[in-house]
């Protein structure tokens, strides 16, 4: 028939009346043949709607089976590598997989990986109610149970703190010098991190309300009682002031102290050896700096770090540089000299040099040319018509 020939349409035979097999069998003798209707339905009804299904859901048994297989596989891997299965850690697994399945792919996430199923399968909420259908959580019917229960708990803590404050006031022990929580160097968790913690989606407004409530908790005098709870929602920031790597002070066979350091600027790479008890000679690539840098500006760049710390005539500078142009080479040498000076200079001077910008590598490089333009910024001639 035409219906069966067409791929996207299924025809369903529908007999009206009760469709129980038993009834049909018993009644077939007495009731006449019922008319049959062809109902054609389009493919959208019987094809699986992938978009509406949402993210794939895994059952708890499936996850448990994966965990079991992972543990067994870990032991097999340990045996293969000739190591003890009992003390086989995740780093060992990563090392073994990288050895057994060498991959030249640039994208690290595309390489073969063997991790615990907890890290691979996304965390998802299990069935929220028991056998009788009663939900486990008392705020289930709000729709966002974890978020609202968190708000409830925080407010409960605020009330408890107020009661504690009243008790202290009654005893006459209320002081303003209470232990404060150290908050410097940490920030509140971001909305995405809170969502991960709660395993729920929250809106920006909800996030703002949560942070406001936490700030209110912090504003109370006895907030140190809930320090542990508050710090759960704060993340330590990476240390801003990067420790400058001071190059080690080395000794010549003659007993002269020297230090070696590198510097880069654009594509120029420079390497400097700073020798103590010298007379201020500067040699670059075997030539005197006057010959190598005829331009005064470049020589001033070389001088600047030594002039800044006031040790112009003290050192003998021996450097090698390659790549890029004269200005970039001068900049690279300057950075290398500043870094080499760190081992000869006091702590306070290190901070002064950092603030002067001597220790910061210049990140500027040549901007790429874009298609449809002459250069990086220059556009083709604009014609009105």
């Amino acid at each position, binding site marked *: 028939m035409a219906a069966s020939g067409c791929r996207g349409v299924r025809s369903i035979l529908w007999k009206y009346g009760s469709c129980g097999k038993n009834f049909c069998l018993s009644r077939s003798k007495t009731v006449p043949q019922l008319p049959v209707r062809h109902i054609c339905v389009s493919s959208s009804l019987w094809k699986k709607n992938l978009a509406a299904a949402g993210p794939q859901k895994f059952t708890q048994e499936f996850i448990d089976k994966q965990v079991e297989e992972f543990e067994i596989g870990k032991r097999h891997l340990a045996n293969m590598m000739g190591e003890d299965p009992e003390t086989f850690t995740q780093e060992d697994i990563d090392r073994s997989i990288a050895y057994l399945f060498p991959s030249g792919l640039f994208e690290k996430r595309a390489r073969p990986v063997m991790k615990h199923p907890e890290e691979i399968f996304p965390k998802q909420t299990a069935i929220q109610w028991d056998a009788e259908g*009663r939900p486990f959580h008392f705020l289930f*019917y709000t729709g966002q149970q974890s978020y609202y229960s968190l708000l409830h708990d925080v407010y*409960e803590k605020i009330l408890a703190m107020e009661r504690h404050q009243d008790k202290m006031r009654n005893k006459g022990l209320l002081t303003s010098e209470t232990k404060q929580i150290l908050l410097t160097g940490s920030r509140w968790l971001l909305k995405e991190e809170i969502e991960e913690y709660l395993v729920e989606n929250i809106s920006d407004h909800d996030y703002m309300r949560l942070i406001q409530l936490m700030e209110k908790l912090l504003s109370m005098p006895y907030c140190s009682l809930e320090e542990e709870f508050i710090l759960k929602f704060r993340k330590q920031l990476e240390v801003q002031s990067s420790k400058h790597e001071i190059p080690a002070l080395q000794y010549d066979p003659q007993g002269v102290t020297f230090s070696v350091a590198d510097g880069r600027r654009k594509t120029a790479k420079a390497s400097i050896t700073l020798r103590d008890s010298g007379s201020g000679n500067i040699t670059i690539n075997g030539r005197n700096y006057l010959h190598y840098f005829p331009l005064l500006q470049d020589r001033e760049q070389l001088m600047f770090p030594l002039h800044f710390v006031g040790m112009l005539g003290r050192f003998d500078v021996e450097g090698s540089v390659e790549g890029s142009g004269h200005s970039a080479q001068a900049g690279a040498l300057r950075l290398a000299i500043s870094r080499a000076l760190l081992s000869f200079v006091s702590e306070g001077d290190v901070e002064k040099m950092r603030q002067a910008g001597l220790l910061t590598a210049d990140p500027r490089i040549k901007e790429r040319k874009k298609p449809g333009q002459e250069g990086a910024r220059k556009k083709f001639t604009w014609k009105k018509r």
Partner: protein
Amino acid sequence: MAAGVLSGVRQVFRGPRLVSAVFSCHGQTLSSASAAVKSAPDTAATEKILNFPLTQPDYFHLSELFTMKDLFEARVHLGHKKGCRHRLMGPYLFGSRLDIDIIDLEQTAEHLQRALNFTAHVAYRGGIILFVSRRRQFSQLIETTARECGEYAHTRYWKGGLLTNAPIQYSPGVRLPDLIVFFSTLNNVFQQHVGIRDAAKMNIPTVGIVDSNCNPSLIAYPVPGNDDTPVAMEMYCRLFKMTINRAKDKRRQMELLKGISASV
């Protein structure tokens, strides 16, 4: 021949009825006769547990939980100003004094008794009770009350299809509340709470504390009373918690007795 045909027809008609009788017995395999015999006293005892309390007017003795004097001292009789009065609250008001509406406590006591009795019976039969209020001052109190009596609370922003679109809002197969108790029927913009209309749509009975500016029409068990004073709210929370705990304890007691009598 006619008789033979007739008997044949009668046999055919008897067939489907027997078949339907077999299919109508829910799940019980009639292969073991002993199983059928054991199940009969069980269902009889369960039915007795479920039906007997319904025959008594005050099975849980809830009249001893409060008196009219308690209601007066908790300032339940204080309504809003005369200008805020809702037309349909007229019958529940005693009068007005200095422009403030006074709620008739005799009617309140009667309505409260009926509401608490209904709540107790729902809790006794293992129903899900949801406490709803949009008053931010009492949100913490109501949530704590719900947690302490093992029921549920919703004192936050009410999302559109929570009751009417439940399989999609939560998960398919979710069980909706069997009773919704409104501690304040208005939301923050002084309009009727959406939950009242939705519960009526989903055939869920409601108990509601209606103040003099609220509409009591859609609520199954309205309780005219004050919903603004903290003392009054604390009293309501205490009363509901005590009824639910009493009803649940009674049910556990009856189950234990049934267990003892069945083993004996």
